């Protein structure tokens, strides 16, 4: 088997190199006691981003004393369950890739280590809204931000021109544009509200200033039906109810078709939208443009995020210092970040990388908008803080069920939001957390 052979060769090389490094010079400046003391350190890393093994190969070439092996996993809630199960048996890998909203779940299951002492000075490399999501606003650091998905407004430039629409800067204008389009072209819609994509709704609520989970002392407070979220859900529920926008879910074949044929003119999505559009709407390449997300107040500038993940060190790791060193390199080193952009197609969370050479050129699909990433970086800076709790998965599932029903019935989202709130609170209590009334 060529794989096994290559692997064992690589391992042999690493061991050899490591041994040489040890005998030749004790300190290579890595400052990792464990690595210097007990020979080369071997770390395993569960990640799902495509091409991560190639990025890690760069690290391994430079750091023979700390060898990282990527074990590619499938992303999503199932992986969170897998990590927690492995942590219960003390068999978790040294490093894991984790979505921001999964971090509280992992931390409350004691799966992630606090690496604050090993990553001093890293904080300033990230936007505060992002950093807060890996630290929960405290001193402990449970993960380093890797990629982010600031929300933006994508629209069909050609069709906007054709129907005489202007790009909305506020949500009020957004609603007016949707109604205007319906009048001019009843068969087309500005966009759709997808009850399948809890993450997008969470991002929109985040922009409006919602705080879904907050923590005070020993008690959690769930604010899914807070005023900000209610504003967002009333807005979208109203548009769906009056028929101004579509109500079909995203990422289905029929949605792909609607995007590809111009049945839908716009998409509220994140910075990674070009990748999705390339496969969903291949025929409309070069006809789209990106603008900042519409605002709740005239002249405001704030956005939410959809997606994004971080690198965390587990409590099971026997080499936390080395693992933290690798995580720091992966998410702050210009070489690593350039490779992540190229190989994994991520949008880096590190602010310096957002305007770096790797992102100098607009994505192919948006070749008509050469300053795509310059504008994206400006938008990314305005990301509002997000507040995640230990049972985001439960809230997300409840969202899909309740909002799915309401969107289909076009009955407004009032009761749906209340139902999501109470399902989340009930589950938190059941898990044994204190929940404030």
């Amino acid at each position, binding site marked *: *088997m060529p*794989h096994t052979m290559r*692997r064992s060769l690589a391992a042999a090389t690493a061991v050899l190199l490591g041994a040489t490094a040890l005998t030749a010079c004790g300190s290579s400046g890595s400052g990792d006691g464990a690595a210097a003391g007990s020979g080369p350190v071997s770390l*395993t890393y*569960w990640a*799902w*981003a*495509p091409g991560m*093994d190639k990025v890690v190969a760069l690290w391994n070439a430079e750091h023979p004393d700390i060898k990282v092996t990527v*074990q*590619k*996993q*499938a*992303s*999503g809630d*199932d*992986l969170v369950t*897998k990590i927690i*199960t*492995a942590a*219960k*048996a*003390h*068999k978790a*890998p040294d490093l894991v890739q984790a*979505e921001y909203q999964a971090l509280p779940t992992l931390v409350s299951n004691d799966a992630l280590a606090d690496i604050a002492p090993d990553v001093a000075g890293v904080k300033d490399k990230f936007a505060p809204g992002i950093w807060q999501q890996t630290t929960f606003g405290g001193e402990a650091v449970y993960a380093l931000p890797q*990629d982010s*998905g600031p929300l933006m407004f994508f629209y069909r430039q050609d069709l906007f021109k054709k129907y005489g629409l202007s790009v909305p800067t506020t949500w009020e204008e957004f609603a007016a544009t949707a109604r205007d389009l319906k009048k001019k072209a009843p068969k087309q819609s500005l966009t759709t509200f997808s009850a399948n994509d809890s*993450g997008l709704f969470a991002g929109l609520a985040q922009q409006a200033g919602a705080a879904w989970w907050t923590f005070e002392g020993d008690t959690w407070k769930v604010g899914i039906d807070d005023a900000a979220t209610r504003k967002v859900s009333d807005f979208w529920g109203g548009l769906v109810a009056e028929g101004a926008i579509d109500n079909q879910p995203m990422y289905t*074949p029929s949605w*792909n*078709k609607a995007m*590809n044929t111009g049945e839908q003119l716009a998409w509220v999505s*994140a910075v*990674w939208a070009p*990748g*999705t559009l*390339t*496969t*969903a709407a*291949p*025929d409309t390449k070069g006809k789209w443009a990106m603008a900042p997300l519409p605002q709740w107040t005239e002249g405001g500038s704030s956005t939410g995020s*959809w*997606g*994004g*993940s971080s690198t965390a060190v587990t409590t099971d790791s026997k080499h936390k210092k080395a693992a933290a060193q690798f995580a720091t390199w992966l998410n702050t080193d210009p070489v690593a970040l350039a490779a992540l952009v190229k190989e994994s*197609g*991520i*949008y880096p969370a590190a602010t310096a990388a957002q305007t770096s050479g790797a992102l100098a050129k607009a994505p192919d699909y948006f070749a008509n908008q050469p300053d795509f990433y310059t504008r994206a970086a400006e938008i990314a800076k305005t990301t509002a803080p997000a507040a995640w709790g230990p049972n985001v998965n439960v809230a997300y599932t409840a969202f899909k069920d309740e909002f799915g029903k309401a969107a289909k019935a076009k009955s407004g989202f009032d009761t749906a939001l209340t139902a999501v709130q109470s399902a989340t609170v009930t589950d938190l209590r059941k898990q044994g957390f204190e929940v404030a009334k």
Partner: protein
Amino acid sequence: MTGLASPPLRTTVNGDGRAAGTTPGASQGRPRPRRTALLPTAALVLGALYCLLPVAWVVVAATKPDNELFSTFTFLPGDGIADNVTDLSAYRDGIYWRWMLNSVFYAGLGAVLSTVVSALAGYALAIYRFRGREAFFNVMLTGVLMPPVILAIPQYLLMAEADLTDSYASVLLPLILSPYGVYLGRIYAEAAIPMELVEAGRMDGAGEWRIFRRIAVPMMAPGLVTIFLFQFVAIWNNFLLPFIMLGDDEKFPMTVGLFTLLKQGASQPSLYTLVITGALLAIAPLIALFLVIQRFWSLDLLSGAVKS
């Protein structure tokens, strides 16, 4: 389908002169005219469509290049099958074929081992009288009712105690003892092996092991083939156990491997074309196995062995 087109009062007669569908007792008289049953036929055709349409979809979808997958008519074949297979083989240096080999290894070895255990246990339960036999069998029966899914996490924690997680053994070991296989083994041994034959063997001086090997196993062969196939398919399609047990993606079976292509994070489009092509190729070994093995089913070694 011909049944639908034929006139409703046509008589269908089998080769041996009996009216199809009549019981042997009734058939001793003259052949009876029979109405073609429209309703059952329609129901069966619907059932067949229900089973075959998704397969047809996979076959057609695997021929479409990326940009046609969702945009052209669903059952209009594309011309990208060769490219899709090439892309799949190129994906991460051909790791798909490694997953395929892993699946063959897990399913092949797992099914063989589990068939051996089922044969031994089934034979013992059927032939020997010993204390606690029924109790043991009943406990096994409850195992049949227990879905393997709920056992995956306890099994993981047990494997972790033994320091065996993330190894080939961690996936193989839990599959060796199959309650359903033991159950089938016992039922089949009881039906296929007459006690007289076992006693005749003893009379002639054969040891118990020799009787099992030389007399019982050949007689149980069709049943053992069934157990083997059941287990092979079950392990081939198994998802949760390897998903929980394995961290190293080079040890993944195909099911878990293809899942990583579907879920690459919220910002990455799923590699639908590759997954569909991979799923289609994954059926091929199963079909081949069925074609090769099905002839053993017709073997009936019992015929003529004893007078009844």
